[in-house]
């Protein structure tokens, strides 16, 4: 199942990249990672650097993807963002893209939340 989850995640990330591109964001990096963690997508919205966490769910039997985002998860993204920025002071923010897929991998819903914090 773990393997299938990763596949679902990849699919969702690609869908999210499409959606962000459609909104006029430029994609700088995807799957930026080191041994402390990972940022799914790093993009630029005009002058603002955007760190995007993508959360995907297949079906809603186990709750919505939004429920899986908590303070800890965002903290990890924040720490990774600090690593990426290497001490530069630039305007930036964290976004969340929630993706719900059907069992046959069709897109049911994609919601983009800007500037998420807990």
């Amino acid at each position: 199942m773990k393997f299938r989850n990763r596949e679902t995640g990849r699919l969702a990330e690609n869908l999210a990249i499409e959606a962000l591109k459609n909104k006029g964001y430029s994609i700088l990096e995807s799957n930026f990672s080191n041994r402390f963690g990972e940022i799914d997508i790093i993009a630029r919205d005009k002058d603002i650097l955007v760190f995007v966490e993508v959360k995907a769910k297949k079906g809603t039997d186990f709750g919505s993807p939004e429920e899986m985002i908590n303070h800890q998860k965002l903290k990890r993204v924040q720490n990774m963002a600090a690593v990426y920025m290497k001490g530069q002071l630039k305007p930036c923010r964290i976004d969340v893209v929630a993706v719900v897929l059907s069992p046959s991998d069709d897109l049911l819903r994609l919601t983009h939340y800007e500037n998420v914090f807990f």
Partner: protein
Amino acid sequence: MLVKIRSIANIGLETVPVDVEVDVASAGFPGFTIVGLASKAVEEARERVKTAIINSKLDFPPRKITVNLAPADLPKDGAAYDLPIAVGVLLASGQLTLPPDFDLTKSFFYGELSLDGALRPTKGILLLGLFAQKFTRGGTIFVPKPSAREASVVSGIKVIALDSLSQLVNHLLSKEKILPLTPSRVEENLEDAPVEFDLMEIAGQEQAKRALIIAAAGGHNLLMWGPPGTGKTMLSRALPGILPPLTHLEALEVTRIYSVSGMLSPGQALKFFRPFRSPHHGISNAGMIGGGSNPMPGEVSLAHLGVLFLDEMPEFTRSIIESLRQPMEDGTVEIVRAAGHVKYPASFTLIAAINPCPCGYLNHPKRECKCSEKQIIKYRHRISGPILDRIDLFVAVSAIDAEKLSVTTHTGANRISSKEAKLEVIKARQIQTRRFKAETRSLYTNSQMRNNDVKKYCFLTAEAENILKLAADRFDFSARSYFRLIKVARTIADLGSDEQVLPVHMAEALQYRQII
């Protein structure tokens, strides 16, 4: 959208309004936050409200929900905010629209939700009713059905008793209207206390029985003193049978205390009869006086306007007995904790039973006492002078002859039944009620009189005063016991329906003076 739901917080017996502000934002990441100094129980309302809404076949909005309990600096505790929060979420998310004639500012919501959307019994509904009566004209309170009857004795408000959240939604959408509870009158709820023993069943001890009647009539503190097995406990257990019923005002006062402590059984409207509390001597200080971080009433307050019976009084720890001083003097108890201070009424009649020494047989006509002098002194020292000074009636309950106990000869010896005694007591109380009618503070009995009240209400004949003076010289009374004797004599006169305190009354009162 933002909605404001009215609710309350009970701090001790004081009620303050709490506004439950619920905002369901149109944008932003979904979440559910409660702010406003919420305790753990209130924080957990998030999970209860969410699940209850879903299980009531309604939608829990996937939006950013913020709940503020105002005023923000007042600590909130308990699960009673579940209902206002749930109603707020449903209104703010647009699932529920109110009929045009509905006035949210005059409606109070209060109650704990269960996960299936049903409403659970909640503490302090009577206080909510009284608050709504005071601050709104023709207001409505929405409360859980199991506790709703408490508020039905409050006039001038509508009480909507709810089984579940979905029932409330149907009511507000006018699909299925719930009729307000019919107001119940205080008088019809009063009834006699269950009686364990009748005075008739107790062999001998005529003086103790008389003292019990005086104590019941005037609310005087009584100490019974005697060897084991002579009937001290039995006499005290017979007391509920001769206590007068609660009056209208008294019943409300007592029920308020039982309402905040959650000690009314589901569906009960009022505390029906005078409380009789008999705590075990292992009780803690907080249990006796009241306490906890959100201070709850203790035994002294639960015995308000009733009887606090301390069996084997010297077995209680000294600090607990000493802590009774303030409530015995003032009729209230003030509990101070880090969170704040609360005042509870604690005007009780103390009935104490003690043995003369640790083995119990000091001065017994037939048995030998095995205690050393030192032991006896130590035992006596457990009850301090100031406490003894606050006791109005002392009575020795001595060993009874076998002859009096025998079943065949018992007629004639036991003269008075509880029923007759109760009538006497009620008559004496009525005289007292008439006497103190003009008083504004809660003064119901002779024992609650202060010294200036004694001067105002107790008229001694010259002869009676003379007896008192002679006795005062001879026994060296403290100022308190001097006035106490007059109060006891006043009650004895009331039992005889005499306007003035006559020498006989004073002489009888002197029989119950301090003997240890």
